[in-house]
């Protein structure tokens, strides 16, 4: 069974201004990136998956449960969402309380919740800050706490909305490691993200949203090969992929390593034409 099934999903905030038009999709176990221009409806889409918004038309089915028939709290044990803005999510005065709030609510024991919270905080590199007040931390640290507090819930499906905002290189590497770890545990990871290099390095499948529709859906390599269609959605392939095209390299390398390997295979590097 697919973990998420979406059938003819239609949504608008105000009648007459459609945000999502007739989307049908299924999510299997592949880690998936959702990309698209600002305002394309990505956040709205994941809030519908989470049950925070209910469809105007069509169905969203999470682990066999139709979101229209369940409360958000009941869905919370199946699907976790890290909010785009950590300030929308954090409300406790102590980091540890914040991270343990979800696990305790969905029925983990005190010990299990504590264990998972400690593990999640260690994963994001904030194990030493458990007694701090989240309001005293920086935006990037708050974002990492909001990630830890969802990871600690140990749900089968985890959605990240812009996990890399305000992160430096090591923050991004932490997040990449977390996503890979979750995938290795067999969880379904969906991520909304604007950083194409990150997408190329981390996700198997990519969806392109534009004007309330799914413009492209395929393996990340297939999607980034469609430069023309991407341009329609006002997106660009990752930097290495662009470099490969400009230097006349065939195929669609997604990482620096792949690029270098292709180049080596091709023989000596030709001079770059401007």
């Amino acid at each position: 069974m697919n973990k998420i099934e979406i059938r003819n999903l239609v949504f608008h905030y105000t009648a007459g201004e459609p945000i999502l038009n007739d989307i049908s999709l299924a999510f299997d176990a592949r880690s998936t990136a959702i990309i698209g221009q600002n305002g394309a409806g990505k956040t709205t889409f994941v809030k519908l998956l989470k049950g925070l918004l209910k469809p105007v038309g069509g169905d969203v089915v999470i682990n066999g449960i139709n979101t229209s028939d369940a409360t958000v709290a009941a869905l919370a044990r199946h699907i976790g969402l890290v909010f785009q803005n950590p300030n929308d999510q954090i409300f406790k005065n102590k980091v540890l309380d914040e991270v343990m709030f979800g696990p305790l609510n969905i029925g983990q024991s005190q010990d299990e919740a504590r264990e998972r919270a400690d593990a999640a905080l260690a994963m994001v590199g904030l194990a030493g800050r458990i007694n701090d007040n989240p309001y005293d931390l920086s935006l990037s640290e708050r974002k990492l706490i909001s990630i830890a507090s969802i990871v600690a819930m140990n749900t089968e499906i985890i959605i990240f909305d812009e996990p890399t905002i305000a992160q430096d290189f090591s923050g991004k590497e932490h997040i990449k490691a977390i996503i890979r770890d979750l995938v290795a545990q067999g969880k379904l990871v969906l991520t909304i993200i604007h950083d194409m290099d990150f997408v190329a390095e981390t996700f198997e499948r990519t969806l392109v949203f534009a004007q309330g529709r799914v413009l492209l859906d395929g393996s990340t390599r297939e999607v980034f090969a469609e430069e023309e269609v991407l341009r329609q959605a006002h997106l660009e392939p990752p930097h290495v992929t662009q470099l490969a095209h400009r230097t006349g390299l065939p195929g669609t390398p997604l990482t620096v390593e792949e690029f270098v390997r292709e180049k080596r295979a091709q023989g000596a590097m030709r001079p770059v034409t401007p």
Partner: protein
Amino acid sequence: MKALSLYQDNGTLIHRVDPISKLLYIAAAIFIPVVLTGFTAGLAMLGLSLMLLVLARVLRKVVPLIGFSMLVLISVVIIQGLFYAGNRQVMFALGGVHFYREGLLFSAAICVRVLNILCAFALLVLTTRPSDLIESLVRQGLSPHFGYVLSSVLQIIPQMTGTMETITDAQRSRGMETEGSLMVRLRAFLPLIGPVVMNSLVSTRERSLALEVRAFSSRAQKTFLNEERVSTSNRVIKIVLLAAMAAAVAWRVVS
């Protein structure tokens, strides 16, 4: 950001009249019927207000306001019709209960007055953006600090309900039951208070910093972002309103 406001952005002629003229109109709508006792003036003023509301295409928004005040007004009519101290002449009887002419007239006068005030205020509130009103008042000499307090009061309630919604979303996203019976909702509501207050304190501090870095408490003469719209028509409106009030007083003195 949304603000606590009934403003309808219809862009009609009435919307372009400056807020001070509208304030003056409220004054006239209250003042003239009081000076010229009797029904005609009050009804005429009410008629005028309704006409202006139609012109501004906001009559539909006034109907619920009138409907709500009607509930109160009808009880006034009944009580005064039955028990007004000056009741002498029976007007009609309903199931053995007598309604008196004096009481009914008295309560009718109250109704006209209330509706009058209501419609005049509605005209201001529905066709003026609160920030425009405050800006005109500041231009007229209201202290900018007080003006700021006024506009933040208009914003703080929607902002707090906004914060409540976000925090509720954050809580139910993490498995806290917030929908259902009264008991469930109450249990979900109580833990909200702390974070909501905390959040508003934090945002107050940030806002005061943001204001200070933009020299809010500087004593220099302030200029305004929007140019003042001085048009002859606005001046004419004000003169007409003042003249009408003066005429009412003169009429009262003479007759």
